């Protein structure tokens, strides 16, 4: 008979892989927080709801495909068909939120609290809009029509599902795509210019309003994609799912250093792994406690995060 500790250790590798997958998804959501913070110095607390709506869109498209049973749903084409509409619609939704809930406030140049409060308002509005139109009961992703439960295999003695690997691959490639966009293109340079010195960016001829809108589009599109991935994995979604996922991703963004794109991914990965390893040893009911303990500790001891720039480095906007 093995000791309980040895039992725990034997499932640890499994938990690590799970933590990795969870972490990349946290990272994907965290990118939305961090990019918006970069250009506007505000936390978009409605971002979790955008993620939730992404999950609903993916669910609706999948249900549609199943009802019109084309037969032979293969993830190779179905996955993009789920992701694309979720990303585009969430992207536009994010821009809309910025246009109506934040821009009128930050243009007036008032308190930085005003847009933050407005973000909570937008968040409550979106949750209730989804509850009223979709009902309060949870929706079920028919994931096993896409990724049958038998699609698992062993790597180095760790049993992993194909879905988990797909989650990691999709999140990683979207993040990588975003980093390329921000680092290598004219568009990305204009985003960085706005986040570094808004007035000088406009002196270069950059339209700050457009760049802010674009930033919301990109961040929200990634949030929408994360919603689809989480829906596929957990198979049950509801209208409040954005709340805790949003807070976790916010924690990841702070952990990595808010405003820093690579930091968002690293923070997400760390948080996912910490969380999944912790639940190996303690009651899984404490999962959220672990995540938010991390947030508190980071805020107390290293508020600028792992890759953080201290706020005083930034020019006042």
């Amino acid at each position: 008979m093995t000791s309980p500790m040895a039992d725990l250790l034997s499932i640890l590798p499994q938990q690590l892989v799970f933590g990795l997958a969870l972490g990349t998804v946290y990272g994907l959501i965290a990118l939305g927080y961090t990019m918006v913070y970069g250009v506007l110095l505000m936390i978009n607390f409605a971002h979790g709801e955008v993620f939730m709506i992404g999950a609903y869109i993916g669910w609706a498209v999948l249900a549609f495909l199943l009802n019109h049973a084309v037969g032979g749903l293969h993830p190779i084409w179905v996955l993009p068909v789920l992701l694309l509409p979720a990303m585009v619609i969430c992207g536009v939704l994010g821009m809309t939120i910025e246009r109506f809930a934040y821009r009128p406030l930050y243009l007036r140049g008032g308190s930085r609290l005003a847009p933050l409060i407005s973000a909570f308002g937008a968040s409550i509005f979106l949750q209730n809009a989804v509850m009223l139109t979709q009902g309060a009961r949870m929706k079920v992703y028919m994931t096993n029509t896409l990724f049958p439960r038998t699609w698992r295999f062993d790597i180095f003695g760790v049993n992993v599902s194909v879905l988990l690997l797909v989650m990691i691959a999709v999140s990683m490639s979207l993040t990588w795509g975003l980093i390329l966009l921000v680092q290598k293109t004219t568009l990305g340079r204009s985003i960085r210019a706005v986040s570094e010195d808004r007035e000088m960016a406009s002196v270069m001829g950059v339209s700050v309003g457009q760049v802010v809108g674009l930033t919301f589009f990109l961040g929200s599109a990634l949030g929408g994609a994360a919603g689809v991935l989480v829906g596929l994995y957990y198979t049950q979604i509801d209208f409040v799912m954005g709340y805790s996922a949003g807070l976790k991703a916010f924690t990841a963004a702070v952990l990595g250093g808010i405003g820093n794109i690579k930091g968002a991914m690293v923070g997400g990965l760390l948080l996912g792994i910490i969380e999944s390893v912790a639940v190996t040893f303690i009651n899984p009911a404490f999962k959220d406690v672990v995540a938010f303990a991390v947030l508190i500790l980071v805020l107390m001891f290293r508020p600028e995060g792992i890759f953080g720039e201290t706020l005083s480095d930034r020019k006042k906007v």
Partner: protein
Amino acid sequence: MPEPSMLKLSDLVTYYGQMMALKGVSLEVRQGEIVCLLGGNASGKSTTMKTILGLVRPREGSVEFEGNRIDRLATGEIVKRGISLVPEGRRIFGRMTVWENLAMGSYVRRADPKADIDHDMERVYSLFPRLKERLGQFAGTMSGGEQQMLAIGRALMARPRLLLMDEPSMGLSPVFVDQVFDIIKEINKQGTTILVVEQNAAVALSIANRGYVLQNGRIAAADTAAALLQADDVRRAYLGEE
């Protein structure tokens, strides 16, 4: 026969919140000139620059550039029409490389053929060979003088017909100040009209054609640079002579 007016400010009144920063400023810059705007702290020099670029809006008066009013245009549109700024305190993008800063300078021309932009990059390298050696370096890690060169190079990348310079000598060692002003002369010789704001009146007037003295948001004196250098009150106020 004087050249036609390129930039014309007429009776500009600009407020910062409740404070009236410009109280009816009129001035003119003609094609091909170097015009110097002198004045102490809080005299309205930087506000004048910001008003020209549309970063603050005048409450009264007008700004005309090459015969068209520009005082209601967005900053980006004004830059596109041919005015760029070397701002006070340089304000290069410190977390971007030197090359990226220059590329940001050509942002308004992003639809232009790449060869044109490369050609202008070469022009900047020939003015500032040191920048070419540091293309991949983060701009924030360079010395103040190098950052000033980059700020000028970045402004030139927009291919301006009028270059606004706000305190280009501020915080630079005397050697660099001379270099910067040599380069301003050189840029002017290559065909760019220049409006420069300076506290260092002696150096600025030595290269300028004409100058204006701004005091408390009003033009207190306007004359040729040579005459201003001789004027008693200017000598007392800006050249430190009793």
